[in-house]
């Protein structure tokens, strides 16, 4: 056990740090610059940032070099994430593609598919969305109904997806469809790549509790996709979906980000006064902050432990730890931020103290998306600990 970084690792860290310093949008590091409010401007801003990331070679360091990545080791990924958490760069426009779709295509796709799709994910030229969920299907993914019928050289797709993040601006949908209803429900699911820009696909944006409209309903009415757009074998999409979920849980580990949020909260408590005394001097606040510090350390250290295990070739189901543990801490941290806001916490937007109101809402989605906290507990109980499976399976 050793927490020191090698010279080589420190050099890598410096390289990232310097690149960010040179390339982050002006004023970003000092917090003087935020995402544009106007949607089109924001899109433009994010597109530009993605282009820069790509040119710098930082768009997907964990991808193989031949597809535009850096073949980064897990340790390098960790260092990259640490540096990212430190500067809190603009969100990556291609995040869904890079973190979720790319690895699936890389793991299950044909050579042609890899060459066709991966480079444009990296450059941000093509945006992706993911179609798992349906109105009656969320946690119970295997009961999905959206139908794809084999019509010789293509599939014809009919049905509906929902909660599809970025569907309204996506070029491609990586989706799961029902191709066979006769067997057990895990069988007969097919993973397809579908062009969003066609007559049979309509999207309808849904307003979220944060007042944003990032996710959508998506209707497929006789939409089609050629046979070569099947990922893995026909009827064998379940395997893809299961692998997918493990990518998602790793990428959702947010303990490094929590550390930065904690530091921001400490700053807030130093600057805000109540009755003339800084919040940070209040004994209750101090104890709560120390408790968060401890939980965040536990999250971070366990994350390091899991990464170390993986580096040594041990790919345990422990990845479930982070998704569940971190999002519970984040939820508590945001609740506490709102409490500390005082009466001003009644305000929204930039007037909300420390942006707490909106963040505390956004955090709820982390406990839902990518498998709810309940589902994570099932996974831990059943796959990590070997408890008997529930009735549903």
């Amino acid at each position, binding site marked *: 056990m050793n927490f020191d970084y090698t010279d080589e690792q420190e050099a890598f860290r410096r390289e990232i740090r310097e690149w960010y310093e040179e390339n982050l949008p002006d004023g970003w590091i000092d917090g003087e610059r935020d995402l544009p409010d106007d949607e089109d401007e924001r899109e433009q801003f994010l597109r530009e940032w993605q282009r820069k990331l790509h040119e710098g070679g930082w768009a997907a360091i964990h991808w193989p070099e031949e597809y535009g990545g850096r073949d980064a080791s897990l340790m390098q990924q960790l260092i990259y994430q640490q540096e990212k958490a430190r500067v809190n760069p603009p969100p990556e426009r291609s995040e869904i593609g890079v973190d979720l779709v790319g690895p699936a295509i890389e793991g299950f796709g044909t050579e042609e598919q890899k060459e066709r799709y991966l480079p444009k994910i990296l450059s941000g030229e093509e945006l992706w969305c993911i179609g798992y969920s349906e109105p009656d299907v969320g946690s119970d993914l295997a009961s999905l109904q959206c139908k794809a019928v084999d019509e010789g050289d293509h599939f014809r797709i009919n049905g509906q997806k929902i909660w599809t993040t970025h569907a309204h601006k996506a070029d491609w949908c990586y989706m799961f469809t029902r191709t066979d209803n006769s067997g057990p429900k895990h069988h007969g699911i097919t993973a397809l790549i579908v062009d969003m820009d066609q007559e049979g696909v309509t999207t309808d944006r849904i307003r979220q509790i944060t007042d944003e409209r990032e996710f959508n309903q998506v209707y497929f009415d006789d939409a089609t996709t050629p046979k070569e757009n099947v990922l893995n074998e026909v009827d064998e999409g379940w395997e893809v979906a299961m692998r997918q979920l493990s990518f998602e849980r790793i990428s959702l580990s947010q303990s490094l980000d929590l550390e930065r949020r904690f530091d921001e909260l*400490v700053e807030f408590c130093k600057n805000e006064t109540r009755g003339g005394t800084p919040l940070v001097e209040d004994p209750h606040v101090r104890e709560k902050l120390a408790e968060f*510090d401890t939980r965040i350390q536990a999250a971070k*250290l366990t994350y390091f432990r899991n990464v170390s295990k993986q580096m040594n070739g041990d790919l345990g189901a422990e990845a479930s730890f982070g998704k569940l543990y971190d999002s519970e801490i984040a939820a508590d941290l945001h609740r506490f931020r709102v409490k500390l806001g005082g009466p001003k916490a009644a305000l929204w937007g930039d007037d909300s103290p420390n942006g707490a109101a909106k963040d505390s809402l956004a955090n709820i989605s982390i406990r839902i998306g990518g498998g709810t906290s309940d589902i994570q507990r099932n996974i831990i109980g059943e796959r990590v*600990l070997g408890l*008997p499976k529930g009735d549903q399976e």
Partner: protein
Amino acid sequence: MDFTLSDEQTQMQESVRDYLESEGGIELARRQMDGEDVVGEVWDGLAEMDYPALSVPLEYGGLGDDLLYLSLLFEEAGRVALPGPLPETLGFTVPLLAELGTDEQKGQFLPAIADGDLRASVALYDDATESLPEAIRMEAEPTDDGYRLDGTKTLVPYAESVDRVVVPARTRQDTGYGGITLFFVDPAAAEAEQLDTLDKTRPLYELTFDGVEVSGARLGPVDGGGDALERAIDRLNVSMCAMLVGGADEAVDRSVEYGKQREQFDKPIGQFQAVKHRIADMWLDTEAARSLTYYAAWAIANDEEDARRAVSAATAYCTEHCGELFEDDIFNHGATGYTWDHDGHIFLKQAKTWANLLGSPTEHRRRIADIRL
């Protein structure tokens, strides 16, 4: 950076586990609870396996391993709630002797500990209502060839089964860790009274020193033992955390086994999500507690800047969360869990005891806040 145990460490841990199981596992704790004193027997066995030598420096006949390595031993000891002053002797006393002892003291005591011929404990509290270091009040008067100790120490673990105790006393009027001098004395010189305790695997005593003259017993500088004492208490805390983590791991295993086996409403209870999710949360807390403990042990062993904060984080987390976790284990076992025969209460009572012994979770969080904010 690599946060994994080496093969050697893993092997050591497995061999300790096998050994303790072969010696009766938790039955040793039960015999101690029933009033038998098994400490001598436990210690002789441990000595045969060379375990007491683990943290003793090489030049004094030990194996020279650090606190992290030692924590792995404690973790296994905790899995069976092993009776005996293991944290006190190996986690607390050995490093303190190595740091403060004169050549003569080291030569006298360290090889004896390594050989299993000497066990030690700590007499920290003068007052069972106040926490450390304020509770340290005993005064030591200089005499012609040593010091005279007057006063009562309480909550002293295993006082009648050890050969020496570390006794901190004030040689200068001061607060906190100021003005403290440490003594390494034979508890037989004091009058010992066993206290009625919550955790009966680890007996606690009141030791009355009635003008006891000690010579050659001073450990370290006059008036200046406080810093070393604070660090030693930190190591003791980490040692206890490691024992709690071992117990917690065991509790998760027990709940899982029972969850698979016990049927109600025609199903194994582990199939009910109320039970399954509770066990998943127990596992989550165990992993978190383990990460904090390993890191604290590593940070101490490597003199890291954030060692104190890491110790307090581990202590606050382990005592609080493992305590709840042991209650959940009992709950998962229904009324069976509520019986003396079921082992759950043994772990719970330890956790409840330790939760206040070396600083309550609140006090540790205060310490973290003072460092961090």
